[in-house]
Structures are given as C-alpha cells and as structure tokens.
C-alpha cells in the first residue's frame, strides 16, 4: 500500500530533493533507486523490477486478448492469403502472391479502392465545414440550444443497420423521398436514388453525412468548451467582431479536435461496410463497392477465403499506411513534446 502512495509522488519528490536535502526519510528513499538502484529495499526485488512485474501482471490479460483476437487473425490472414483455399479442408494449394496480383488486376477491386478514397475526401470536404458551422452556431446562446443539440446527435446514436433500413425504404422508387420531392414541386428532379449507377454513390454519401455529421458536431462542441473564456473577453475588449473571434481564436484553438475527428472520419470511411451493405450491397453495377463489401462478396459469398484474405491484407496495409502518414504529418503537431520530459527524468 505504501508503495502505491509513494509512486505517484515520485516526480514531485525528485524536484524537492535538492533544495531540502534529507528533509524527510521518505525523500531519500525515493531518491535512492533513481541514483543507481544500488540500495535494495525490504523485499527481494528492486523497485523497478517490482514495478515491471506489476505492469506485466495487469497488462497480461489485455495483451492475451489482444494477441488471441487481433494479432493471431492478422497473422493467419497473411498466411491464408498465400493459398487458394475455399475454407474447407487443408491448406495445400500454395499460390504465393497470385491472390494479390489477381486482386490488383480486378477493376472491381481497384474501383472499390477509389470509391473508398472518394468517400474519405467527400466526408471531410462536406462534414468539416458543415459540422464546424453548426457547432459554432450551437455554441452561441440561442433558444432551444439543448434540444437542437439532441436532435442533431440522434442520427449518430441510431444503430447503423436501423438507419440504413429506414433510408433504404425512403429511397425506393415511387417511395417516400420521391413523394416528398413531388410535394415541394421538385418531381422532375426525382431519381432512382439507389438504382442508378451514376447516382447511387452520391446517395450513399448523403446518408453517411446525415449519419455522421452529428459526431463531428459533438466533438467540435466539446472542443469549444476547452477554449478559454478570457481569450474571448480579451478579443472583445480589442473590438473583434464575432466573425473575427471565430476565425482567429476559436478555429485555431479547435485544431487538435478537428485533426482527431479527421482521423476518425478517415478510418471510418476506409472500413465502411454496414451502410453500403444495407443500402446497395455495393451495386448497382458495382458503383458503390467499397473494399470491405468486396471482401465479404469474395470471402463468404464465393468461398474464396485465400483470395479474400489477400484483399483483407491489402485493406490492412492501406489503412496502416494512411494512419501512419496522418499521424506523422498531421497529428504529430498536437503532442509536440508532451512525453519527453517524463522520459528525461527517468
């Protein structure tokens, strides 16, 4: 128990050591391991070894789950991807990189990759300005603000499948959406929302925006709470207009939140499956195919488990590379040197 109490005190104790040498026995005891670990304490283990054991003990269950449910499947997928395998019987038809070559030669797959990139770009291009505008609006003192916030967040809370099925029904030919268009005199603009290969991807994009802009807004609103009020006050004293305050103070200070949201949005777009599966199953004529939908089509519906594993590995690599690039170029500036001081003190 004593250990638990002293451990977090450590850093502060460090700072306190030099000015008041030997002020308390507790301080010297803390300083001892840092000095070189020569002096052993009551137990048979040094403090650092003990701490390592403790970490190991608490991390082990989580690590075990991680290894069993994440690392193993990834490794297995890489292994399967080198075989022509229908899921039944032994892995005995080794094909090397043939599955990868087939995937990259299949225009349906390469188009699916392009669709994913389109969705990433469109999500950010549409949801960022829209989300930001609504968040700034809802951050002002307006009537019914709480109710508005709830309403805007509802689509995000709704289960994806439920929302998908409802949209699917709304968008049927001669369906409710068409009736709505007719009521406001726009019947000549009605389309085969999900049935026209030229339009389906945009329809899916609209539904995705409806579903996910709420998340952007809530994150931005949370970020706005972190902008210190005195900055606003200072700006107002300097005679800045509302618009200037937003542009010069709010949005720059919201940067970390926006960048984190962008990361979430990108990952979500890369692994997009449920909404597309329910609305279009990747059709019509593959026009809304995404990598994940393609994967399910080839994997479970065609029993090409080796090939589907290769596609999964490609999806994994694309996600990993994009995530790493985002981390390196964009997220890095949000934690400039936060971890370093701690490291130096050790």
């Amino acid at each position, binding site marked *: 128990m004593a250990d638990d109490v002293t451990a977090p005190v450590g850093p502060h104790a460090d700072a306190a050591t030099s000015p008041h040498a030997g002020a308390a026995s507790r301080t010297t005891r803390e300083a001892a391991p840092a000095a070189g670990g020569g002096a052993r304490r009551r137990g048979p283990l040094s403090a650092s070894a003990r701490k390592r054991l403790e970490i190991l003990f*608490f991390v082990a269950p989580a690590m075990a*789950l991680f290894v069993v449910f994440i690392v193993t499947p990834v490794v297995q997928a890489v292994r399967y991807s080198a075989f022509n395998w229908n899921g039944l019987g032994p892995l005995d038809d080794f094909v090397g990189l043939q599955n990868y070559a087939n995937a990259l030669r299949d225009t349906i797959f390469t188009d699916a990759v392009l669709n994913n990139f389109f969705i990433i770009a469109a999500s950010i291009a549409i949801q960022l300005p829209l989300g930001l505008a609504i968040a700034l609006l809802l951050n002002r003192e307006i009537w019914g603000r709480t109710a508005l916030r709830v309403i805007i967040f509802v689509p995000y809370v709704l289960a994806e499948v439920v929302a998908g099925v409802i949209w699917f029904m709304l968008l049927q*030919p001669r369906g409710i959406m068409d009736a709505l268009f007719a009521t406001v005199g726009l019947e000549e603009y009605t389309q*085969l929302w999900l*049935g026209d*290969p030229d339009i389906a991807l945009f329809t899916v994009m609209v539904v995705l925006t409806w579903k996910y802009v709420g998340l952007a807004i809530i994150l931005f609103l949370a970020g706005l709470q972190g902008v210190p009020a005195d900055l606003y006050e200072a700006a107002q004293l300097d005679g800045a207009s509302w618009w200037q305050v937003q542009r010069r103070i709010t949005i720059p200070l919201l940067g970390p939140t926006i960048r984190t949201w962008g990361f979430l949005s990108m990952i979500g777009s890369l692994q997009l499956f449920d909404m597309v599966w329910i609305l279009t199953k990747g059709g019509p004529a593959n026009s809304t195919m995404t990598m994940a939908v393609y994967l399910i089509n080839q994997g479970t519906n065609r029993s090409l488990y080796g090939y589907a594993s290769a596609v999964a590995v490609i999806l994994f690599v694309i996600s990993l590379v994009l995530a790493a690039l985002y981390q390196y170029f964009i997220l890095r500036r949000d934690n400039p040197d936060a971890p370093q001081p701690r490291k130096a003190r050790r």
Partner: protein
Amino acid sequence: MASSKRALTAAALTSAALLLAACGGGGESSEGSTSTGGGDGDVTLTWWHNSNNEPGQGYYEQVAADFEAANEGVTIEISPMAHEDMLTRLDAAFQTGDAPDVYMERGGGELAAHVEAGLTMDLSEVAAEEIEKIGPSVAGWQYQGKTYALPFSVGVVGFWYNTDLFEQAGITEAPETMDDLYAAIDALKGAGIEPISVGAGDKWPAAHYWYYFSVRECSEDVLIEAGETMDFSDECFIRAGEDLEELVAAEPFNAGFLATPAQTGPTSASGLLATEQVAMELAGHWEPGVMQGLTEDNQGLGDKTGWFPFPQVEGGEGDPDAPMGGGDAWACSADAPPECVDFIKYLLSDEVQTGFAELDMGVPTNPAAVGSITNPVLADLVTIRDEAPYVQLYLDTLFGENVGGAMNDAIALVFAGQAGPQDVVDAIQAAAGTR
C-alpha cells in the same frame, strides 16, 4: 487517479475472465450437442432447418417428437433459423468441423466441395430404397456416381403472373414463345402496367434469365459437357447472352430494378408482384409462399395467381419443354451417428412428405405425397417437373459458389448495360480457371 486506474484494471480483468468463461462455456455446450452417442443408448441428433415460421416450424417439431417416440433413446435438438442465417452458420460450422448432424444440402458445386473435404455422408447404400423412389430429381445431389442427400422439395422456375392485370391488358393466353412474351410486354405497357419485376439487386434472380436462355439455346449434351469441363466456347452461350440483351433492351422491368431485392419487403421483386404493382416475375416454386408473407392478409395474390413456363426460343437447340429448377435436400454430416440416416429417411417417408405437401411447405419429391398438394398452381408445376425430359439444376448451384458468383455478377452487369454476351462467358471461364 491511482485508485480509478486500479478500478479500470479490475473491470478489465473481470470482463476478460467473463469472456474466457463464456468461451469455455460455449465450447462445452457445443461438445455436448455433437452426438458422440455413447453406445446404442442415448443419441442426440442436431437438426438445422429453415422453416422458422408457422406452420412449418410446428410441423417439424411434431415430426421430431414422433421420431423420438418411435426410437427410444434418440433426442433431436432442432434449430430453426432464417434461410440466410442458416447458410452463413453452415459455412462456419463446416470450417470448424462442428457441423450439425442433419442439415440442408443444396447440391451441385457446393455439395462437391463438401464431399471433397469429407464432410458429408454417402447415402447411396443406406438409403437406396428412398433414392430409387425419388427418381431423377435426386441427380442434383449426386457426385461421382454416389448420392449424398435426399431432396425433399424440388421445384422449377417459371413466370408467376397476375391474371387480373393480364386481363386488363387484353392478354387472353399465357405466352408460349418469346414473341408472345414481347407482345404481352407491349400490351401491358400500353395499359400502363409495369410488365416484369426482377430482383437484380440480389443478382441471382436476374441470372435466372441467362440460365433459362442457355437451357433453350443449348442442347442438354452441351450443358452437361460445359458443366464438367467448364468450357463455354459453344456458340449457344453467346446466343443466350444476345437473347438476354434483347429482352433488357425491350425495357420490361420495374423502375430501379438494378437495386431491387428479390424477396425482402413490399418493394422487392416478389413484393411488387404480390401488391399488384407489376404483372409478372420469373421465380421458383417458393413464390406463393413468399408473396403470402409480403401481404397483410397473408394471401399473396390469392386467386389471381397464374403460372406459365419460360417461353420457347425460336431456333434454340435446347429442349423447349426443359425446365430449370432446384431444391433442398436432407443430408447427414460425415461423422453423424447412424440414427441420422434413419431420421432423414423418415423425413422422406410418405407420411411426413404428405403432411409437408398439405401445409404447402414446398414441392414434395415423394410421389406418394404429390397428390396432397393443395395449391392448384403448385400441382401444375409438379406435373411439369415430373413430365419434363430433364430438370436443369440452377447453374450457379451447379457450378459452385465461386464460378456461380462470378457468373451472376457478370449477368447482373448485362442487365445494367455494362457487359455483353462474351463478358458472361469470359467471367465464368476466368473464375473456373482459378478454382
């Protein structure tokens, strides 16, 4: 801070322990359900089927109870589930080697894959009598001269139509040739009625058109040989594709058919027919049952239901009366106890099949039960099946999931105007090459 972290860790540990316990529990119970049948005494048979609605579900419970009563020590554990769920779970079960004892086998390439992996029991000897009785319908469940499943419902695909709407459009006789069909399409359009619904969103309903054109254009010998060698270079397959292009060009299909699902909801292909939005649909023997589920009064089209076989194609080399169809069969997994065979034999018995027919659960294969079909349209369909020179199994089932899936995708693209006759043949051969 420290204490909240500790609480979190404790929570994580607890949930991990629970998860492990859950996994352990799952393993144990599944072990218990696979019938290892100690001695001749107690045997448990696991049975998966897709009749998860009344009256089918209750009927099968009764059938299982009767069998248990007649065979002491046998317990049947029934798992009724929705069709799609069943297929997904079967795939997974076969991969883990934990398949149910009694399951539904769809035949063709899928069966071949199961047999090659040693997952299915050979019934040729043990159920010889039943196989003899069922007759030619059993062919779809044979592989390399052996029979692996007993088909309990085999139907054929044809056009289901709304007799009222046909009358409104002034069509007095069901179309017999493609020319008749085109005339009917024009008449229906003239009367402001959408002629045909097709669930091209699910692909296979669209693909059925290409299969049928192939059956009409190609002789039986060519079809059999193509199925064995995967060589589709015969000109007749190109002509089938051209026939399909011609039909698509006539624009007979419902608005937005590329995204229309086959059977789910009132805006599906079956739903449009059931709610009188379109005049006809190409579908199998399941259609009346599906339509009943899609209308509020559970009647489907009721008395207005009509049926005619796929029209004849002028100049085709195929048999003009040959239907295309398929069905479902009961099979035993390879390591099922011998009681499994007794049970599926019982499922094919005169008694069980008659009850099956009386409840309109499908199209019975046991000749003794055929007379008990209550629906007059289904009874017609059975006559066509039993008098046909041969019944062509659905080509996607026949070729297996891989080639079948690639073929269906290519045919759906023909419907979208993005692929031609040669593309379908190329897709089949490319997929067969990688098999």
